[in-house]
């Protein structure tokens, strides 16, 4: 646990020093979201109906942005070897990376989602549900993204492969997340969708670090 905490602290320090990744993801999220009213028109009822889906798609794409650097720099400068020889299981190294990704990307996206959703005229009843869904949703995206980033490590054109690998895996998160907010907007219970979102997280939480850890060991060879 001490080693995991030390690694998490190191990763957070590195992320803060490279704060441009977080800023870039946030700017992409807001700018991409702001493009939709320009493309589909400013009618509040149309925008409000599409708002949950727009926020979720933009959050998913923004969360992908920093993923190719998640392990890439460590792989290039030899730090990955040091991490794998730290005595921590490779899966724990991956979990620390996923936690860092969520803290410096997922959490800021979650905080920015509220203003963006309001700008897109989301139904007032759907806003808290959207934000509640983004908590497990962004956590799951960080875990799935970490596994994807580890799997394409060292591959040629890894940056192109990464979204092709992660986006299909993220479809359930997108469906249940947007459906929960849609249900709340329609006066229905969002609970089943939120529970399914939590179920996706419950599956990703143990499996993604294991898969990522195996991929990291393979990349180090």
């Amino acid at each position, binding site marked *: 646990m*001490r080693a995991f905490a*030390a690694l998490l602290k190191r990763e957070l320090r*590195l992320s803060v020093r490279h704060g441009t990744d977080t800023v870039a993801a946030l700017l992409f999220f807001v700018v991409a979201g702001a493009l939709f009213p320009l493309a589909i028109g400013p009618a509040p009822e149309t925008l409000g109906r599409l708002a949950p889906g727009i926020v979720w798609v933009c959050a998913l794409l923004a969360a992908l942005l920093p993923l190719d650097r998640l392990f890439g720099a460590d792989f290039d400068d*030899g730090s990955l*070897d040091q991490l*794998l020889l*730290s*005595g*921590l299981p490779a899966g724990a190294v991956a979990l620390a990376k996923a936690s860092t990704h969520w803290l410096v990307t997922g959490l800021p996206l979650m905080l920015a989602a509220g203003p963006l959703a309001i700008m897109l005229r989301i139904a007032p009843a759907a806003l808290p549900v959207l934000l509640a869904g983004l908590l497990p949703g962004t956590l799951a995206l960080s875990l799935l993204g970490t596994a994807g980033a580890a799997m394409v490590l060292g591959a040629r054109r890894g940056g192109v492969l990464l979204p092709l690998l992660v986006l299909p895996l993220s479809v359930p998160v997108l469906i249940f997340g947007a459906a929960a907010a849609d249900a709340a907007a329609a006066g229905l219970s969002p609970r089943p969708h939120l529970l399914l979102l939590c179920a996706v997280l419950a599956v990703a939480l143990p499996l993604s670090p294991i898969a990522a850890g195996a991929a990291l060991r393979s990349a180090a060879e």
Partner: protein
Amino acid sequence: MLRDLGFELAGGEALVVLGPNGAGKSTLLRVLAGLVRPAAGTLLWNGADALADLGEHARRLAYVGHQDAVKPGLSAAENLGFVQRLGGGSIADALAALGLAELADLPARMLSAGQRRRLALARLALSSAPLWLLDEPTSGLDGASVAALGELLARHCGLGGMVVAATHVALPLPRAAELRLG
């Protein structure tokens, strides 16, 4: 790549692995570190399969690869922070052992190639692991730094530690055995 290869190392001994480029020196070190699984053969530690538990094996060794694993965005001292939290020891002493005491707070991106190499080697001074694996440890080092490294290695061997170093130049280890590859 590596065939018919076998050697033993006891506490206090050092082995210098020599050979031309591509002979498999780095691969041998990565196998010894558990980073690469050998297609055949065994790696034993006190008679037991060393690679059966990679986490436990990792705690027995300190590895300095041919890359420095130095983060340019962190200071020299911060670069050692993670290793220090794992193994204890004093970062100031580790930096001083490699002549980097005055550069502790300097961002690593401002260090020269030789200074970055010394910073990578400073991890050894924080390690209490018995086995040190070094891949071209003198790469980019000046004479004084090579001598400081020699002192560090001699002290480690004097305390019963083991060193395996891949290199194509002489290391300041007077009683090191040699293994030639290729």
